């Protein structure tokens, strides 16, 4: 791939080992190259020698300075944004950042340093600085950090396996697709404004640690969100239909399959229809939640509270702690939901935004059940954390092992525990969203994610949505507006009484999930079938100024 060649050229150049490559190659490629006619999944080439040498220089420097363990990451992250409104382009942005981050463990204390200087001297300085920070922190140490053993992987590679590299699609082709979609939405009476974008991320990650693991992988993510606003003729109301397409850990093929031009008019009609929707009567309703909505509720009420660092107070100063705590009192006993509720953590689902070959400390992630038959079963972990649950794993005859949830959002960010794909597994019975509506007497069906807010222990939350449909006697009788539901997590999941089957399972995703200090962003998918939850508290959010 062009980008790979650029990466080689740049790092080789930085190492002073090679002459400068011809400059405009990348620019030219934008105009000339089109997606191949028969796309093949991308395959990751082995790590190039200059990059490998720099990683080793960083590790050697950290070891010589006194680190008992160190790892180094040389990463290149490219982002491409195409931003439009109505009939016009707003901006096209291409970003590119590259550098090296070194993490060192000294006497049970962490230190981290990152530099954009990709030279032997530059990365060695970072290695020394990481050790110096770790040493300075010993004065304040309480307990020593102890890493859970992980096998040395030797040299490995992995790729998302995208079939169309978004960087091979000419910019005018991307803009054209967005502007055509905008035009379709604008044909709907009442629709006055449309905003649409394409976001692409490509992470080229090179990793090595002092235990002999050396990995190279490429991750690509794609998203094309659209937001369509209809305004009432008298300027007393406006309604927006947005979050129309979910992000995925795939290439440009994801955008093409989403068919934004073909769907834009339908989305526009939904925005206009919301202006005429009936205001919801507050009260308790059976909620039928479409996967395009439910993924976010899973993210907030199951994904975050089952992060082990939160459960032990490590995020108390920002994102918060967790009601699923202390682990000693909830593992194997907390009834999160009914027996039909099984929740999986993984970094392996095809198209998942958190899907990787190796995590950012050289562990091959495994699939694990966070909730088994309705009962709390496991947490998301890294090598630092898996040891904390030794008693629990030993009880099941297993040695502690990291689930592979370490991630740093850039070469310049220290890696820590981030969310794998956390998904509600489909039910045994093959039933669809429509089947669940047909089985519901009085309820509200919710499509798409909207407003969301949840407390710092993940108990009390409030969720809106995109589209709300009133269900009476097993049929949708009309559209509602100003709907939000307020819930307490354990009650909400224990009120689950219907689960869609395998065919109804879909992935939703967050492209920008925040955690940590300094703040870091990750992308994560959540798969689920549609569900039904009995007697949930619904409020009306409409108020006059």
């Amino acid at each position, binding site marked *: 791939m062009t980008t790979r060649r650029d990466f080689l050229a740049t790092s080789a*150049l*930085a190492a002073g080992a090679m002459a400068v490559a011809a*400059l405009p190659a990348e*620019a*030219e490629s*934008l*105009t000339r190259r089109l997606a191949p006619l028969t796309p093949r999944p991308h395959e990751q080439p082995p790590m190039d020698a200059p990059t490998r040498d720099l990683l080793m220089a960083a590790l050697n420097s950290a070891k010589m300075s006194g680190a008992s363990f160190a790892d180094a990451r040389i990463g290149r992250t490219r982002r491409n944004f195409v931003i439009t409104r109505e009939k*016009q*382009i*707003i901006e*096209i*942005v*291409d*970003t*590119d*950042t590259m550098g090296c981050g070194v993490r060192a463990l000294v006497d049970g204390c*962490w*230190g*981290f*340093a990152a*530099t*954009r*200087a990709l*030279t032997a*001297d530059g990365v060695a*300085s970072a290695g020394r*600085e*990481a050790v110096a*920070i770790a040493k*300075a922190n010993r*004065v304040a140490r309480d307990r020593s950090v102890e890493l859970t053993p992980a096998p040395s992987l030797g040299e490995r590679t992995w790729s998302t396996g995208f079939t169309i590299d978004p960087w091979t699609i000419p*910019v005018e082709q991307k803009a*054209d697709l967005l*502007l055509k979609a905008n035009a379709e939405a604008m044909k709907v009476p009442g629709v006055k*404004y449309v905003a649409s974008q394409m976001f692409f991320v490509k992470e080229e990650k090179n990793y090595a640690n002092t235990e002999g693991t050396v990995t190279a992988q490429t991750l690509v993510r794609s998203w094309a969100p659209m937001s369509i606003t209809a305004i009432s003729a008298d300027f007393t109301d406006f309604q*927006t239909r947005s979050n129309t397409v979910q992000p995925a850990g795939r290439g440009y093929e994801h955008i093409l399959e989403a068919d934004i031009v073909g769907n834009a008019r339908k989305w526009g009609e939904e925005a206009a229809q919301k202006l005429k929707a009936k205001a919801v009567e507050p009260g308790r309703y059976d909620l039928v939640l479409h996967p395009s909505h439910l993924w976010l509720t899973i993210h907030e009420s199951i994904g975050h509270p089952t992060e082990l660092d939160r459960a032990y*107070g*490590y995020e*108390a*100063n*920002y994102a918060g702690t967790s009601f699923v705590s202390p682990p000693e009192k909830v593992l194997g006993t907390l009834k999160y939901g009914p027996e039909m509720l099984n929740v999986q953590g993984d970094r392996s689902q095809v198209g998942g935004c958190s899907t990787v070959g190796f995590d950012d400390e050289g562990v091959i992630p495994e699939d694990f059940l966070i909730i088994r038959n309705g009962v709390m079963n496991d947490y998301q972990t890294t090598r630092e954390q898996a040891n904390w649950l030794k008693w629990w794993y030993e009880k099941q005859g297993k040695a502690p092992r990291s689930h592979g949830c370490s991630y740093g959002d850039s070469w310049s960010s220290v890696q820590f525990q981030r969310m794998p794909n956390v998904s509600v597994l489909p039910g045994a019975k093959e039933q669809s969203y429509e089947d669940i509506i047909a089985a519901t007497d009085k309820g509200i069906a919710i499509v798409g994610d909207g*407003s969301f*807010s*949840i*407390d*710092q*222990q*993940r*108990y*009390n939350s*409030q969720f*809106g949505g995109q589209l709300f449909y009133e269900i009476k006697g097993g049929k949708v009788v009309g559209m509602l507006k100003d709907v939000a539901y*307020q819930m*307490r997590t354990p009650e909400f999941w224990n009120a689950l009484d219907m689960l869609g089957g395998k065919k109804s399972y879909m992935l939703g995703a967050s492209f920008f999930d925040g955690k940590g*200090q*300094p703040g870091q962003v990750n992308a994560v998918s959540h798969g689920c079938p549609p569900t039904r939850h009995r007697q949930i508290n619904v*409020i009306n*959010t409409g*108020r006059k*100024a």
Partner: protein
Amino acid sequence: MTSKFDTRAPKRLLDAADELVSRDEAQRVIEGAVKLSKADSVQVSLGGGRQRNVRFAANQMSTAGMVTDLSMVVSSSFGPKHAIVTTNDLSPEGIERAVRQSEAIARLAPDDPEAMPSLAQQDIAPLPAAWDEQTANLDAAACAQAALTALIPSRAKGNLQAAGFLQVDANVNSLGNSSGLFQYHRGTKSNYTLTVRTADGTGSGWAGAEEPKFGALDFAKISARAIEKAELSRNPVAIEPGRYTVILEPQAVGDLVSLVAFYADARAADEGRSPFVKQGGGNKLGEKIADERVALYSDPYDPKILADPFDGEGFPLTRRNWIDKGVLTEMQYGRFWARKQGKQPTGGANNIVLAGGNMTREQMIAGTQRGILVSRLWYLREVDPRTLLYTGLTRDGTFLIENGKITKSIKNMRFNESPLFMLNNLEALGPQERVAGIEAGIPCVMPLLKARDFNFTSLSDAV
């Protein structure tokens, strides 16, 4: 082209400071990139810096780091076509590649009928006081000592758990363009936040501070405040959700009131999709939208909260009175919308200040028959953009006031409220402080604020 950024020859990279580029160096590099350009017009910015941080939690050291980075943003235009490319490869080859690539993409871009010509040089008064040399060169030992100011007392008490974060930044921001404009600003910032929880999990207290100078942070005071709140907030009791008089600490005020400035965009209102849409069309500029004691402004030169004095196009930012005497006196006009509507462009807001009042905290509490003292808010999200209705929760210290006294720690509650309603229900304003941790991240100076009829809609068991 300068060779200053040739990564083949770095000298003492992490302690020598190429990321803290001087004014002269920045100008030389930017002018070099502008000269390479073949576009009709080009804007080049150079920004980055050095960050040190230390994190601790569960009474234990967590992660700590130092990051240096510097990157260039090249925005090329051919008539109404434009595109932006950024890179942190600042070798001569890397810069040329970024310039060429932004030109190649811009040529292919569809026309932007709203494209504006680049700005000629703008006069800007410098802000030297924003920079502190000691802060820019802080070492790891000083960060570890800062962590100890919270860890020692929390460990000593035996029943407390401290979690905190210190981040010290030294940043440079500069830009120039092919019309001869050049702007440069550098500043330091020290931000410290601390959460102390009781070991039984029933109490939690938060405190924080933000200053340009590391030496101005009062670590002992922050520790004492967070510990006091944690202990006072233990064993909270439930009260019925509903409408209450509230006394919001400056931190909580910042989360809500900063929203007003963010939503005061003239274009969104003129288009009919904003809380500031006038009945029948147009915007509410000049209308009374809040209690007459409300004065909300942005000013990069305010000594309490110095900020970058120019925006991303080099446009000078000066004092903007968004609300004065309760009247919406200014709205944000970008350059295109200002031209279309026959207005002057305003630039955006790099900081937000709500004027205070002369009522003390003690007087506010003493004058409250029944109300709630709120330390901090959390997870604010838009519920209805028509009214600026937001939801969120209280956090880390929520107390009941009865007959002029704090009587109980109460459980946290979810609110559904609009800062516009709140600023109309204003009872009193108190002393201001620079706040350290609002969710939107923009620097704020906010007062203690008392308002009636604040709408709490449900209880939370979260501590």
